[in-house]
């Protein structure tokens, strides 16, 4: 299972990077979504998978073998929420960009660096 997920992470990273390299902003946003999900999975996998067992919560458990590590789950939860916020904001910016310029292409505008 870990191996499968690891391969999935790899595929997601590849797809994300490919999308980032396109000029369109929508594809850029999709790329960011891919990358952030790949990273979330990576963090989730970092403690190893323990199927079907609860996380130790009270802190008083003596034998930890039957429990899953709760920390990566908490981390991923936080990261997912942050990722959601970022994507929503990016979409809002994209909307403004489109209504200002009527274009989805970053290179349609004059470069900002050296006019």
């Amino acid at each position: 299972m870990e191996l499968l997920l690891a391969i999935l992470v790899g595929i997601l990273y590849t797809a994300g990077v490919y999308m980032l390299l396109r000029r369109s902003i929508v594809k850029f946003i999709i790329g960011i979504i891919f990358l952030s999900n790949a990273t979330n999975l990576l963090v989730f996998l970092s403690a190893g998978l323990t199927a079907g067992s609860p996380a130790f919560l009270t802190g008083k458990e003596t034998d930890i073998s039957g429990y899953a590590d709760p920390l990566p789950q908490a981390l991923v939860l936080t990261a997912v929420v942050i990722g959601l916020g970022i994507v929503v904001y990016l979409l809002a910016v994209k909307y403004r960009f489109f209504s200002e310029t009527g274009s989805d292409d970053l290179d349609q505008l004059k470069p900002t660096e050296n006019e």
Partner: protein
Amino acid sequence: MILHLVIKNYRYIGIMAISGSVLLLVTSILILIRVMKTGIISTVVGGWDAPFGISIVIDPLSALFLLVSAIIVTAISVYSLKFPEGKIYLPKFYFFFYTLILGVNGAFITGDIFNLYVWFEVMLLSSFVLITLGFSKEQLKGGIKYMALNLIGSLFFLAGIGLFYGKTGTLNMAHLGEILMRDDQSILVNSSAMLFFLAFGIKAAVFPLYFWLPASYHTPDITVTSLFAGILTKVGIYAMIRFFTLFFVQDPLFWNEQLFLIAGFTMVMGGMAASAQYETRKILSYHIISQIGYMVMGLAIFTPLGIAGGIFFTLHNMVAKTNTFLVSGLISRMQGTYELKQVGGLFKKSPVLAVLFMIPALALAGIPPLSGFFAKVILIKAGFENGNYVITIIAILTGLLTLYSMIKIWNEAFLKQQPEEAVKREKYTLRFADLFPSVLLAAVTVMMGVFASDVFDITMKAAEYLMNPQIYIESVMGK
């Protein structure tokens, strides 16, 4: 007291913002005094003991950064009263301004790497909003570039945290330091270290990763740019200093070589690009990059003196850089443009402004008796003592490039006659709210120069704490 400092502040809006930032300033001064007296302050939030709970740690380094960013916040909260696009943006601006400060201060005081990531995100999201505030075409374009690079940076950061947690099983910085000191699998640690380095490198705009900065920093309003220039990139530097002194210390040879290389290239590339520009904000943006090089150099020398020099330089640079941006904003308020070719004659019109520009500019170029001179002297001395001749000579030569760019702004804006075809504009007189922030920051620059030995003592103490991570580890884990 500390939580009060970071959480409560962003509720103030409008005029109240100033009292908020003054409060922040006072609190930071108190924290610095207490840290200098009693050593590291640490506490744990959430009812779990370290290393499981999230610890909050303030050592001299954090306290210094808190203080200097509070000074900048005070200056900018006054400066932004004259937000040129009218009052509509003001409440929004202050809201995100203070969330940004919340994120920055959180990043300075946290003792937990995931918590640091969360503060980075708080900071990033509010900086995204600030950089696109107003939604002009240029801003949208610069903003998207800024977002793209910074998002990739924070994903690197998160991936680094994940892998690191998989290897060590902890997220607490002190605990990590303890574990890694006993551990010698430097190859495995280096992979995470590289991910963290990329993340902070993108934030700090070091050599191969700086392209987003000049592409975006000149697009938003000058108030926002000054804020970003003074504080944001330096958070990356802070995180780098913290990580590479506390726990990525197994493989100093490899990392110090890398850091020297990066520091040298960052200085030279930034300095050369700056001298080719003719727009004040672009010159200054490239300058930020050039000076990040010095800070990395301090870290790379990796002796107490070198790190103290790096910290001193960072603190001086935060103040002086913000001030040059503020003054260039004043130039454009008076003459309506940032293009150096279209302004001129300001020395006659406003000698006060000329003096205000001269102080931070000379400080940046390293002319005694201002703060930049002492910062550079310490760095150069540390470099020679440690036998790093090449980087030290590069640093000295880059100082000349800095001087050249500053003289260029000075000549073009202040000395030469205003060109005929310049935009005619109704006369703009500088008011108190325009001048006060620059005066404040200039005063700090001069003070840092005059009391250089005291400042140096404090930074030296901070550096000693950094070079002996044992103290940090004990004060967190001992509780």
